[in-house]
């Protein structure tokens, strides 16, 4: 009855059934909030009494297996990126990614940092990016509602982009995580302390 493939062959399938399923999907969005950076700070107000996102059936979940949306709340360092990718790949489909704050678009104020990736979209597909540093609770809630509309209209399909263009994403990811030599040439100057290397070991 429920068939995941129906999403992929949507054009030549019965539209009504998808609409029904999409209704249930949009009304029950479970999110995994990966607290990558400071953007996570405005989530508690959205989740709790003042804005109360549970009204729309949105709730926090503990693990990627249970979640529908992955929230990347703020900048992500290289080290975090690795964990984000693992988390993203562990989520079952359909899954959506919400990126918070300017840092996820172009690095924001950390654009020239040696440890912060600049554009999240190069490494995993992002459905909605919320601008601002940090995005206000209203903006977060608005993006959720926007995502709901997109789901209902069948437009939120970035996760399929990831499958189709896996080589592209994988190449970008590998650039960060594969064993690599120094990025800058000057690294050859690095001092090696003989005594600690040889003597004490």
């Amino acid at each position: 009855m429920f068939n995941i493939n129906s999403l992929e062959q949507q054009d030549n399938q019965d539209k009504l059934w998808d609409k029904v399923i999409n209704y249930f999907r949009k009304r029950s969005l479970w999110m995994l909030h990966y607290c990558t950076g400071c953007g996570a700070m405005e989530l508690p107000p959205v989740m709790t009494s003042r804005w109360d996102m549970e009204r729309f059936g949105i709730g926090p979940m503990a693990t990627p297996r249970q979640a529908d949306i992955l929230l990347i709340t703020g900048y992500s360092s290289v080290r975090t990126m690795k964990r984000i990718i693992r988390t993203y790949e562990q989520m079952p489909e359909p899954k959506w990614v919400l990126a918070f704050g300017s840092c996820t678009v172009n690095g924001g104020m950390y654009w020239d940092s040696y440890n912060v990736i600049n554009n999240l979209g190069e490494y995993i597909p992002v459905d909605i990016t919320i601008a601002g540093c940090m995005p206000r609770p209203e903006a977060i809630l608005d993006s959720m509602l926007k995502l709901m509309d997109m789901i209902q209209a069948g437009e939120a399909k970035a996760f399929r982009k990831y499958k189709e263009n896996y080589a592209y994403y994988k190449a970008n990811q590998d650039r960060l995580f594969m064993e690599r030599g120094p990025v800058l040439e000057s690294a050859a100057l690095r001092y090696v302390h003989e005594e600690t290397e040889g003597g004490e070991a």
Partner: protein
Amino acid sequence: MNFNSYSLTKIAKEDKDTTYDLFFGPNHPGMHGNFGYVLDMVGTEINSVRPNAGQLHRGFEKLMEQRGWVQNLTLVPRICVMDPDPNEVAYCMSVERIMGVEIPERAKYLRTITLEMSRLTAYLLAIGGFGGTLGHYTPTHWSTADRDLIMDMFEWLTGGRVYHIYNIPGGVRSDAPEGFFDKLLEVMDALEARLPDYDSILFENPIVHKRLKGLGYVSKEDARKTGLSGPNLRASGNAYDVRKDVPYAAYPYLDFEIITQEGGDALTRALQIRLEYEQTINLIRQAVKKIPEGDVRLNLGLLGNLKVQAGEAYEKVESSKGEFGYYIVSDGGTKPYRVSVRGPSLPAGFLWAQKHLPTMKIDDVAAWMGSLSICPPDFDK
């Protein structure tokens, strides 16, 4: 097998197959922030711990060397998102110390008020955190909603909800809007009225006492030696408060006592937060009452081109988590030569993790972290 004479952790050293790795964080509901411990477990007991830091490392200190003196103000508060204002103030104070200027009295009071408001938000989050780590979500919902009252005040005062960038070298950005102080007092009344609710649901809850009592004990001497600060230090019986010891802003003019408690366990630290919460409300009321008229900032010329003469200074500020210190070296240029940040969480997050966790069960890790108010960004930088 003899059941009592030796513990599981000892068995683990003899039999390698008994232990296993458990990843507590970064993406774990019980973890405060983007940080992790890799726990070597035997049974449900922790055998040893490897801190897994660096997920939040942005190279703040490097970035600050590349930006102007005032540009850096955008970066500074982002070191601790829960309690951002102490960072702004500490940075500004360091710069002012090197420049050798004294800010106007009214600015001092406004700084004090923002600092204390920021502390209140952090304490409300900590109350929520205690609830969350113990599986008690009611206080979490309440306190987060209450926190929003102060956030709104901040928004009115500074234009920003979370990051305010209100304090600048030479004072504060602008004077408080009309009616702000009256409304602030109202908010304080409302927050004080909520305290009995928090008492009954959290601080006097028998199960909370059962869970936290004796957890993560820090003795008086150990707390001093290992660099703990803030409520953690005071909950172990040490009367140290930067506001009193190295007075800054308007604190010398305000009347308050350092609150200390003997005990040193998680429960004492929780109650410490509750006591200081009351004190903070009191301080804000005093500051609002005593605030003088006058300028709110010095004229330092065009701030974008600010130059600071060569020199260095270490200035610290008491935040909700402890002592935030900024060591700034200036070579007389338009950019700092070196900014080094001292965050309060490192001793707890690394050293005390390795001391405390290996006797603990997995049940208590989150509550322990919450009680020591470990905030990973301030050591990850």
